[in-house]
């Protein structure tokens, strides 16, 4: 049994079958990549993990709890953090505040009127957040407003925001989309460091370079269906994958 188990998930949008009987098993401590051509259903699948969409049939079980019909904030409280394709951060707040907020969420739960104590006195959370910012090389900018950061910096900030919660499962939706090569490499290095600390990750990506340098296992999605699942080396040689994904081109 993996930490995240997806069984026979189907999802239709009108006449379009976005997910067709998807099964996945994601093991603790691994980096699992989901790849596939555009429109294969990758994002739809991810949205089914976080409470944004509910599958028509099937089950999604995380750590013994079904994730169906649970709102996003509760899923996060169970230990699932998510990184978006376009970084979602608190643009009006400072970097430090950006990282402290998830730390408070982890400590205090989804709602607490903590209106009488000063943030300045919360040294424990503050230190946690600073350490996290140092880990992603943003400590020097901790007092800047996050909205002004470059895209690569925003991505690293978002990762820090997720990691400060010590998630059991980290979901990444095309973490290097729209990034320059240098930023992409930095991000890959960062994710490798994260993976080396034993964080379970599910990565959706179509940059092969990213996928093959990170993933322990790869699932290939095409037209809403998982057509192959294996370790990267096997996937590379799988003719079905080349057929579906690359139209036969050589990897």
């Amino acid at each position: 049994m993996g930490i995240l188990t997806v069984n026979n998930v189907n999802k239709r949008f009108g006449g379009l079958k976005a997910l067709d009987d998807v099964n996945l098993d994601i093991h603790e401590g691994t980096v699992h990549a989901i790849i596939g051509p555009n429109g294969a259903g990758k994002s739809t699948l991810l949205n089914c993990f976080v409470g944004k969409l509910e599958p028509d049939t099937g089950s999604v079980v995380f750590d013994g709890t079904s994730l169906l019909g649970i709102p996003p904030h509760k899923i996060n409280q169970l230990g699932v953090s998510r990184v978006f394709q376009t970084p979602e951060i608190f643009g009006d707040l400072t970097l430090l505040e950006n990282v402290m907020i998830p730390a408070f969420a982890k400590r205090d739960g989804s709602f607490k009127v903590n209106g009488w104590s000063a943030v300045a006195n919360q040294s424990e959370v503050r230190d946690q957040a600073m350490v996290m910012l140092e880990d992603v090389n943003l400590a020097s900018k901790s007092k800047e407003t996050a909205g002004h950061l470059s895209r690569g910096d925003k991505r690293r900030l978002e990762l820090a925001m997720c990691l400060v919660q010590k998630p059991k499962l980290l979901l990444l939706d095309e973490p290097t989309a729209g990034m320059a090569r240098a930023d992409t490499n930095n991000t890959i290095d960062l994710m490798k460091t994260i993976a080396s600390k034993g964080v379970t990750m599910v990565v959706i990506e179509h940059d092969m370079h990213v996928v093959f340098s990170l993933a322990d296992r790869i699932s290939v999605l095409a037209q809403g269906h998982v057509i192959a699942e294996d370790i990267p080396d096997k996937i590379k040689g799988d003719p079905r994958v080349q057929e579906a994904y690359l139209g036969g081109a050589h990897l």
Partner: protein
Amino acid sequence: MNILSLSRSDLITLICFIIAVLSGPVILEPFGAGYPDLLQKFAIFGIFAIGFNILFGLTGYLSFGHAAFLGVGSYTAVWTFKLLSMNPIPAIIFATLVGGAFSVIIGYISLRRSGIYFSILTLAFAQMSYNLAYSVLTPITNGETGLQLAQSDPRALDVAFGRDYGAVLPPSDLFGIEMTGYPGFYFCATLLIICFFISMRIFRSPFGMMLRAVKSNQNRMNYTGLNTRPYALAAFVISGMFAGLAGGLLAVTDPLAGAERMQWTASGEVVLMTILGGSGTLLGPVIGAGAIKYFENIFSAFNETILLNAYSFLPESLQHMMASVSSLFVGEGWHLTLGALFMLIVIFLPGGLMEGFRRIKGMIGRIGGGGDVSSKSETAPAE
């Protein structure tokens, strides 16, 4: 760290604030605003705006119905006077609680939606309360006449403690001190200081940070494990309680309540106070409330004669022309000034007066101190 658990700069701000408020009668004397009636209004609307700012300034939810809570607070206070006691303390406690209770209901429903939908929902509720106060609820609100004290009021607590006001209609009094004139002002001023302190604590707390996060990015909040709606509701209720308290104080200083306090133009006024001063800043709303009430008072008192005197240095024909042009904006025309001010602020200074001060400070700094300003302005927290 100190006993109030405020940072050094906040402590200084608070102390300056307290001194400024308490010495208000002296400081404002030269501006012609040193009399108690006006000072009371400064304090009361300062409280109203501080509360509104906790909702609008921090969470970004623009309520167009907060005057409803002000009105509810006034009605509650007058009823407390009638039924229980002329002592202002039970009156303001009930006013705050009832204001809070109303805001729980209205907030719970309105916060199901956000953005402009939220604004319209709050507006709808406020208009509903206003219309009801004028019609079916007349037994409670006394309709157009407004709710007033009467000699036949039971005043149960006063009777129980053997206080008899005789045949006169008493003003509210705090254990013998009448809540009119300066005592009335100092009563309101004390509450203003308490409210300011509360708001300061909220601004600097993790809760305040969450409220700013609500304004910044609700989607990220949800995926960070935070439930945004209760946060917004909490802010809404706090601001509703502040509004109820302000309404109660209006009744304390003048024991009478009318439905016109709930009209949506009144809701618009508190929005203007907040943005004029600077929404999301600590001091801004108080300054904005003071400025609006000050100008309202000064401007609406102007008349033709005063204007002619003011322009007496001009040649006669010009004097009359200037006087008739200016008279559009003063006296009865005060609302025109208010509307124009509204537009000017939103167009040119959306950050309000506090933003203006900061810019001026920045400019002075640039002239005096050279290059170090940019980093400073960027790290400046919302205050």
